[in-house]
């Protein structure tokens, strides 16, 4: 059921802090994936180089 809040929602300090914290967690997760995918690329490239036809 749709209903409106009474009053106007506000960006309180608490909500802004939560948004910053979510953004920080997302940033760390993305950075972790960047590192992981770089390592996988190195591992896969490395094995291909070792197994290349001479």
């Amino acid at each position, binding site marked *: 059921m749709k209903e409106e*809040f009474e009053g106007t*929602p506000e960006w309180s300090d608490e*909500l802004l802090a*939560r948004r910053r914290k979510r953004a920080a967690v997302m940033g760390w997760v993305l950075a972790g994936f960047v590192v992981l995918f770089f390592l996988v690329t190195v*591992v896969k490239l490395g094995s291909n180089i070792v197994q290349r036809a001479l």
Partner: protein
Amino acid sequence: MANNSTDLPVFDTSVPRADDVSDATKEIVSEMASAADYFELLKPRVMSLVVFTTLIGMIMASTGADGGVHPVVAFTALLLIALGAGASGALNMWYDADIDANMERTRTRPIPSGRISKDSALAFGLTLSAGSVMCLGVFVNWLSAGLLAFTIFFYAVVYTVWLKRHTAQNIVIGGAAGAFPPVVGWAAATGTVDVLPVLMFAIIFFWTPPHFWALALLKNKEYTENNIPMMPVVAGSKNTRFQILAYSLVMAGFAALPALLGHAGLFYALFSTALSAVFVVMSFWLFIATDARQAAASKALFAYSILYLFLLFAGFPADKLIGI
């Protein structure tokens, strides 16, 4: 952990849930969610079982003739498979939010408690699903990626949308989704599928009905009130308990097959037989339980079923390690 409504300065949970408000206020309401709330959408407890069975599939695959993969690739595959399983959990919570809100066990989940909007959960689930499948394909192999995609589709669409609200066989057929992870793990490690991962699939597939129906017997009233056709709701307690016993026997048979077919040794044979014997005895105890003892027997079987699967799958690498 999930947010507690009491620490919200502007809104508390007595205000409308994130989906009960207009678009103008939806954005700011969704700001109540923390990263932990999004993690909760992934069903971490289910994910832990997925991670474990996937890991066992990968370990066993790496001991075979096809060999294994580099530890970094194996870790990446495990992470992506876990994320894919978690994504299907988020999609399940998105679709089932109406049921979850009415059940004691699930009403504190992020969507029914109003911490995350349905739209956000859907976007989160779809993004993670597509991302995990694509990355698994690119960085590991496309067979495991295809199997992961099918697993997500099976859980989120076949089980959640088609089966759960429409047939008492929902858990029986839907159990396939939970049975795929060791097969996906094996495929990630070798690029193929062999007999052992198929047996692992069968063990989890026939384990799921006794496991879930033991819980359904305990939550029968809530499932009945929400018109969810779980087996105890449709067939009654006595019939369900008979089916639990029957599935337990079939499961015990499949649990013995890896040793009988030469894919596991003496240690696994003895260990799995002991574990399965306890499972069957507990199922039989539930089957003959009086009304007064049924709840205790259901609770005990449900708890043991989780321990059983962890120990049984741990028995595979332990058997290789011991080597008898």
